[in-house]
């Protein structure tokens, strides 16, 4: 489903030094697999997900999703592949504040091959328990509800791979638990693989399969405490 080979990414630090954030010789995720990666803040987890998603260009290496080599594609094709195959749940939800809940989810499928399907978006929101909040704006929702919108948006396009970056970082314990259960269930229902990264042990505890990001990432930044690097997420 997902294979990563010799993937690396460096940034220039404010001191002018090149710092290698990600250096993953090999990584793979099977279809339907749900894996949680443990890593401290600044260890390069988000950069790793961004490289997989193709929203950040790698220095070297290959990312292959369902046989399509993301790193070899032109940017427009990467965008298309991301729209078709990937769902991304961000730590800060990244909902579009000026759009309604329904519109946020519709936009999650607008750039994919199926195009905007409001009926399906509505179904998805009903599935995550927000059928009664379709016309609300994100600012009118609780953090837990916003997270559910983000989950619905990531999964509405029936992706093959869902990337979740600290998805419970902004939630309290109760909502964090509910969200993780929801993400796991919905991914299983849709047959999507899930790759979650977090530093939170409680979050990681929800997953049977867990790995340390440091095990797979040989980047120099992984060996040091959270470097502050300009331009690096």
């Amino acid at each position, binding site marked *: 489903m997902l294979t990563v080979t010799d993937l690396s990414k460096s940034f220039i630090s404010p001191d002018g030094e090149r710092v290698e954030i990600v250096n993953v010789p090999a990584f793979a995720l099977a279809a339907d697999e749900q894996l949680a990666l443990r890593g401290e803040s600044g260890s390069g987890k*988000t*950069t790793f997900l*961004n490289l997989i*998603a193709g*929203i*950040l260009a790698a220095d070297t290496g290959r990312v292959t999703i369902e046989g399509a080599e993301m790193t070899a594609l032109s*940017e*427009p094709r990467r*965008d*298309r592949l*991301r*729209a*078709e195959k990937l769902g*991304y749940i*961000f*730590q*800060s939800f*990244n*909902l*579009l*504040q*000026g*759009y309604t809940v329904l*519109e946020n989810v*519709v*936009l*999650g499928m*607008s*750039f*994919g091959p199926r195009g*905007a399907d409001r009926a399906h978006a509505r179904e998805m929101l009903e599935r995550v328990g927000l059928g009664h909040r379709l016309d609300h704006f994100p600012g009118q929702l609780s953090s837990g509800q916003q997270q559910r919108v983000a989950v619905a*948006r990531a999964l509405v396009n029936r992706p093959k791979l869902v990337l979740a970056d*600290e998805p419970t*970082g902004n939630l309290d314990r109760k909502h964090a638990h509910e969200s993780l259960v929801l993400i796991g269930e919905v991914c299983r229902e849709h047959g999507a693989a899930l790759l979650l990264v977090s530093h939170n042990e409680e979050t990681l505890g929800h997953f049977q399969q867990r790995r340390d990001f440091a095990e797979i990432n040989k980047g120099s930044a992984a060996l040091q405490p959270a470097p502050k690097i300009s*331009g*690096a*997420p």
Partner: protein
Amino acid sequence: MTLPLIIYRSLRQHALSTIITAGSIALACGLLMCVWMVKTQSQTAFTQTTTGFDAVLGARGSKLQLVLNAIFHLEASAGNLAYADYEAIKRHPAVKAAIPIAVGDNLRGYRLVGTLPELFQQVEYTPGRKFALQTGGKIFRADAREAVVGAFAAERLRLNVGSRFRPFHGLAFDPKSEHTDDYVVSGILAQTNTPADRVIWIPLHGIQTMSGHDPKAATDVSAVLVQLRTPSAGFMLDLMYNKQGTRLTLAYPVGAIIAELFNKISWFDQVLTLVAYLVALVAAASVLTSIYNSMSARGRDLAILRALGAQRRTIFGAVVAEAACIGVLGAIAGYAVYFALFAGVAGVIRSQTGVVLNVLARHPVLWICPVAMIALCALGGIVPAFKAYRTPVAETLAPVS
């Protein structure tokens, strides 16, 4: 559906700047269309307004003043000419018809013009159209104190058939200079959309013998309106009166003399047009700056859209289309500005000259200007669109701590 949604939401999110920017575009668009339409329509209307006459004979002086006074009922008379001069030109074989007029009195600012009943019976004020009276009216008798009132003047002065009035001396209204002569309205003219609509017509003899007027000038006329048998006759009379003679002036051809006036004041509409162009440029620049400035605030939204799979060119297109949409809103509102401005200007021109401009007239500028404005706005959107195009997704989406 996606692109319209993105544009709609962005316009909604920045509603205030959208409204202000669209407003400035509306102003520019409306002003441009108005300047253009007033210029072209008034030029056409004034140069074609001859009220059926080819030339005007008057005292020695400016041809333009003669035409403005005798045809448009504006300006003061350049002086009088003897009744014998009227009779002489009337008898000239090249002249088809000659109608004398006399001015010098008003009714609350609307001119009284003395003339002969033949003006209403014989003259076509525009090809195929003679003066007509509204129901119940009749033309004044040459020897009676009766008046035929132009449609606009009757409406403004609230005069009807049978109404009585006393004229005031002079061309400007002065309540202290009322004449003692009583006149009765015998008829109201049907609207002609010419300067005749603003005039109160009375018998020539009435003006000449009005109480308080100089008895020595009792047979003089202010001007003679002339219809020629052939156009070449005008040049012959021009030679006779203007080049060989020294006492009188023949203004011929009437349309060309008014066209000269427009040439003289062409600098004015050039200035207006320049102002309108500048307003248009400022409006386009405001589209650029308002969208450009909003880009910092919208960077995250654009990065989210990119993360959802939107391509750079989609984002670029959305921003340009948004700028064009602001242009469309401005252009639509520009029509409202145009109609309001044009109606105001046309109202002033009608009340001052009797010439009617058509607010609903069609002209290519009425679509060229809005389309050009929309294109200019889209052009203004290119710079911010390029900024949007270059939005770094991963950096912009980094969690804000």
